[in-house]
């Protein structure tokens, strides 16, 4: 590995962004409207990165030492140095393969999916910019670089969620995503400041070495690392949509569906998991993993319950993503860093796949998302159906498919940490299988409830779309088996061993038993969904208070709006602007002005310009002075 390779890997999507960006602004119709050109420039750029990523991976796999080099000095002074530098170790290379691999397929898929869209060129420009930012995030060899990528992907997410900017809901969702993420970034920034105050650097290796040697400035006493890691975790909560900052992700589905697949399922939202896995040394020393695990498992459960009652297929997938991210945090939280990252990888494939198939359904059904108006799509869209089924089986933990391996590893490790966490995780696994197959049965099986005019156009997607689906289906099914066979002795654990410290809790108990329990629970969820939704649609469901609560997503958005958004808005408008600024401060300023004018106006009357008045006042003055001298002295 050389710095040149990394630079090419990183810069290729940036070039794609610049070229497509300029094409998008050009007035030349031939260039601007040229879909083929933009689409293939965008895809090719990511292909270059993919090839570089494979080279980097091969080199590491061949036993090369991790790559860690500085490109140039960024923000430096006598007392601080923040550099643009890269680190490629096992963890990074896994992330690189996921980002560029899934990213490339989604770019290709988008060529077909976005066909005919007015903003075609702009779309590919944004998508390439996203890949660039995401690569910075995982390539950086220090926290500040990670933060640069972190904010960069946030920007692209904002731009792509609000891609159809004439839609109010889309731009609202984009803004919400950016702002909620900024709340997380607030924590990330403070976490970085704490780390810098403690270690005097933000470089990963320096910090981790110093932390392991307990050789750092205890700026907050014994809890220095506790504070630092929890603050960083706030950043992760925002970016990876965990409680209480998950609210932006379901709304983010306003963006084009391939964007949901790439950014809001496979890559960006997993950045928080990556961050904690990267900081594994710190979390181990600070013992803050437990907080992470609890937030993770609660989010997993909470989001899964919401997914049970939704009817918008993309929203179901979105809540499912929130839930699965919870699993990943549970994994890294209980110290099973490799397992958490392993689930990140498998999830990237099967959830990416499911979003793309959802996109395929939308594409065929004139952007319909409500599955109550679907049903029986299996006959018209066989490839879409089968690929979706693969994804759903994978996420439901069907034996030997990808999700089975990674989820089981996490649950197994959770048992070693806390049986309660394990139990909640297991219940969530049941719910996951249930809501996913509810979606399958209602959408693809049963009677068709499709509107006649839509029905006549119903078709399987073009090859440019279904080929990526078919390709993605293979790793979605098999990657777990390939990388995860053997549990803690698997290839994946072996490959990433150099990056992660030893876990606190050794996984205990019979591995096979855990696998059996997980499988049974998953199958039970599928069976339950089958029994309920084989012939019934969600509109025929009984409604009760709990159901209503779930349909309305626990009213969390409403509560946030009433407790935070509106008070800030109204307080700023009426109290701060109208009363404090215009009323009090300007009142004082203008008041001083008025007083001076009043005094001036009064005094002015003395100068009447009439000689008589002056003489009278002069005489009066003399008399008074004389009187004073005569009588008082």
């Amino acid at each position, binding site marked *: 590995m050389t710095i040149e390779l990394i630079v090419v890997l990183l810069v290729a999507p940036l070039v794609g962004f610049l070229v497509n960006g300029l094409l*998008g*602004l050009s007035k030349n119709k031939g260039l601007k409207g040229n879909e083929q050109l933009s689409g293939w420039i965008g895809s090719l750029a990511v292909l270059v990165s993919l090839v570089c990523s494979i080279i980097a991976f091969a080199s590491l796999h061949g036993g090369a030492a991790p790559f860690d080099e500085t490109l*140039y*000095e*960024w*923000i*430096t*002074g*006598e*007392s*601080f*140095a923040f550099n643009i530098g890269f680190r490629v170790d096992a963890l990074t290379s896994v992330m690189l393969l996921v980002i560029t691999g899934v990213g490339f397929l989604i770019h290709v898929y988008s060529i077909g999916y976005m066909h005919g869209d007015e903003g075609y060129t702009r779309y590919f420009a944004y998508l390439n910019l996203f890949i660039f930012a995401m690569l910075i995030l995982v390539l950086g060899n220090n926290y*500040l670089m990670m*933060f*640069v990528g972190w*904010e*960069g992907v946030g*920007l692209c997410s*904002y731009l792509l969620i*609000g891609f159809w*900017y*004439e839609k*109010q809901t889309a*731009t*609202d969702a984009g*803004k919400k995503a*950016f*702002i909620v993420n*900024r*709340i997380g*970034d*607030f924590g990330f*920034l*403070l976490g*970085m*400041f*704490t780390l*810098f*105050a403690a*270690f*005097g*650097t933000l470089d990963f290796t320096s910090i981790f070495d*110093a932390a392991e040697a307990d*050789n*750092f*400035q205890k700026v907050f006493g014994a809890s220095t690392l506790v504070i630092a890691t929890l603050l960083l975790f706030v950043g992760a909560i925002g970016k990876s949509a965990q409680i209480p900052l998950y609210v932006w992700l379901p709304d983010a589905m306003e963006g084009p569906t391939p964007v949901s697949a790439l950014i809001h399922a496979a890559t960006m939202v997993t950045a928080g998991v990556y961050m904690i896995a990267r900081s594994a040394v710190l979390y181990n020393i600070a013992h803050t993993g437990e907080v992470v695990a609890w937030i993770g498992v609660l989010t997993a459960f909470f989001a899964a319950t919401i997914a049970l009652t939704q009817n918008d297929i993309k929203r179901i997938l979105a809540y499912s993503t929130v839930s699965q991210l919870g699993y990943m945090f549970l994994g890294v939280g209980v110290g099973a860093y490799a397992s958490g990252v392993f689930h990140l990888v498998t999830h990237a494939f099967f959830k990416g796949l499911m979003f793309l198939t959802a996109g395929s359904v939308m594409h065929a059904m004139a952007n319909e998302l409500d599955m109550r108006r679907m049903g029986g799509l299996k006959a018209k869209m066989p490839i879409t159906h089968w690929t979706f089924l693969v994804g759903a089986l994978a996420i439901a933990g069907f034996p030997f498919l990808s999700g089975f391996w990674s989820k089981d590893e996490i649950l197994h490790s959770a048992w070693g940490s806390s049986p309660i966490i394990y139990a909640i995780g297991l219940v969530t696994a049941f719910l996951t299988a249930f809501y996913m197959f509810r979606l399958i049965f209602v959408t693809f099986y049963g009677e068709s409830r499709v509107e006649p005019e839509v029905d006549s156009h119903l078709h399987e997607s073009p090859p440019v779309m279904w080929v990526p689906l078919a390709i993605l289906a293979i790793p979605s099914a098999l990657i777990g088996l390939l990388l995860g066979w053997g549990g803690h002795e698997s290839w994946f654990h072996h490959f990433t061993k150099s990056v992660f410290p030893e876990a606190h809790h050794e996984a205990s108990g019979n591995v096979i038993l855990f696998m059996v329990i997980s499988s049974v629970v998953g199958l039970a969820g599928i069976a339950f969904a089958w029994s309920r939704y084989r012939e019934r649609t969600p509109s025929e469901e009984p409604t009760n208070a709990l159901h209503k609560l779930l349909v309305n997503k626990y009213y969390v958005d409403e509560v946030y709006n009433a407790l935070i958004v509106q008070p*800030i*808005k109204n*307080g*700023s*408008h009426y109290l*701060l*602007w109208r009363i*404090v*600024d215009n009323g009090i*401060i*300007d009142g004082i*300023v203008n008041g001083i*002005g008025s007083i001076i004018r009043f005094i001036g106006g009064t005094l002015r009357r003395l100068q009447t310009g009439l000689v008589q008045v002056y003489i009278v006042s002069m005489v009066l003055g003399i008399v008074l002075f004389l009187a004073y001298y005569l009588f008082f002295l």
Partner: protein
Amino acid sequence: MLLSIVIFLPLLGVIAIALLRGLGASAVKGIALVIGLLTFIVSLGLYTGFDATTATFQNVTQQAWIPGLGTSYHIGIDGISLWLVLLTTFLTPVCILAAWNSIEKGISGFMMSLLALETGMLGVFCALDLFLFFVFWESMLIPMYFLIGIWGGERRIYATVKFVLYTMAGSALMLVGILALYLQNNNSFDLTTLSGPFEHSHLLFLAFFIAFAIKVPLFPFHTWLPDAHVEAPTAGSVILAGVLLKMGTYGIIRFCLPLFPDAAAEFTPLIVPLAVIGIIYGALVAMVQPDLKKLVAYSSVSHLGFVVLGLFSKSPAGIQGSVLQMINHGLSTGALFLLVGMIYERRHSRMIVDFGGLAKRMPIFATIFMVVTLSSIGLPGLNGFVGEYMILLGSFVQGAFSKIYVVIATAGVILAAVYMLWMFQRVMFGTLDKTNEALPDLNAREIVVMLPILLFIVWIGVYPKPFLSKIEKSVGLVVTQVQTEPAMGRAGEQENSSQQSVVSNQQNGDTLLKSLLPDSRQPMADSQYTELALRGTQRVQHEKIEKEAETK
């Protein structure tokens, strides 16, 4: 000599326009633009000739002026004023170009005011004589008074009077402060010979600080700003936000901190909360503004709060960040006012509700607006982030004040995204209103106005080293000056604690942290020595210049 040319070249332009105004509007504009560009090009010589390895003043000229008063024409620049000079010479031609078609009446008067203003501003940044400084400081008000009062909007008289009186109130205090310093400095106004500690340093500090705080503007002295901005013509707003506000922060770093370090330390617990209130308050009030210009004006209150915070952090990173942020704010807020001006020329409205969906009709405008917005939000990779990050980091690490202030200030980063993105959404996104359908996208002149600013926005964001390296030494000198005053009261205790902590760290062998607090490592001796040495070199230089002047 070069510096004097830079300062007075615009004044030459004023005279040229006064003599040649009969040639017509385009000739006047041409002269103004040529002079503006020429000044910028000449000022680049200051950059290329700048020696970044020293903190002493460079390009120094000293001529006897009114010897009886103890004042001389003494100018020079260091790493701090260098950038403010360049910012001024850069923004002036941009403003001239931006005002090309928007000024209908009295174009020659307008251009003359703009150029006269440039001389005033440059003089403020370069003056090394308090008397000279004050003359420039006050002379700047006159053209600004005309710019807003003649070419402003409907309530321009109210805004002008408010602006002038606010500033004059501060200036009066500062004048007293200057005279007091004069009496304590052997009846000399020379800045380079001033050395503390001064009598009544607390009062003197306040006299200077209030004058500068009004200019910054620091909460609660800010209410002149929204009015002045809303009424000022675009060029006036750009200069006001881009350069004039920096005079306040420049004054703090040039006078308040190095001359009265004790008082600065004593008042830090009072000033820092005001800065932090300004950050949050400015952002919240900006959020609810219906008028684009007012929104940007209040955002300045928030941004400048960051700068003041960094200045009082006593840390190299914080103060360096503040100086960089002065430039950043000049670029991004200047750009925002330019963009608002461009849209105003088309639509004759600045009300946010009148817009919506402009991205569809004006993609180039929308793209540039987006980049500037992101710069203002502090997105990494663009200029704003570098400055804000350094300020917050320096403030957090140094511990000159409670970390809770840094936490609140960091929350301001969230609010910046709120008000800017909400504004952007309402102006650019959504459906296009019928009345806005005919709005043309930016023309070539307007793109030329914006491109250089965008270039610097990206440059500073990606590779700020050329900027930071020039600032470093001069800021280092200020840091030694604020940190090394005799340990008295609270400031002293803090310093002691930081010494201890660093000593313990030194044993750990962490070199980076060691260098984080370089001066307190070997308590007083080291830093005092540096300070004395630096002052010594200044004196020597000063004497040399005097001798030269005599021989001439």
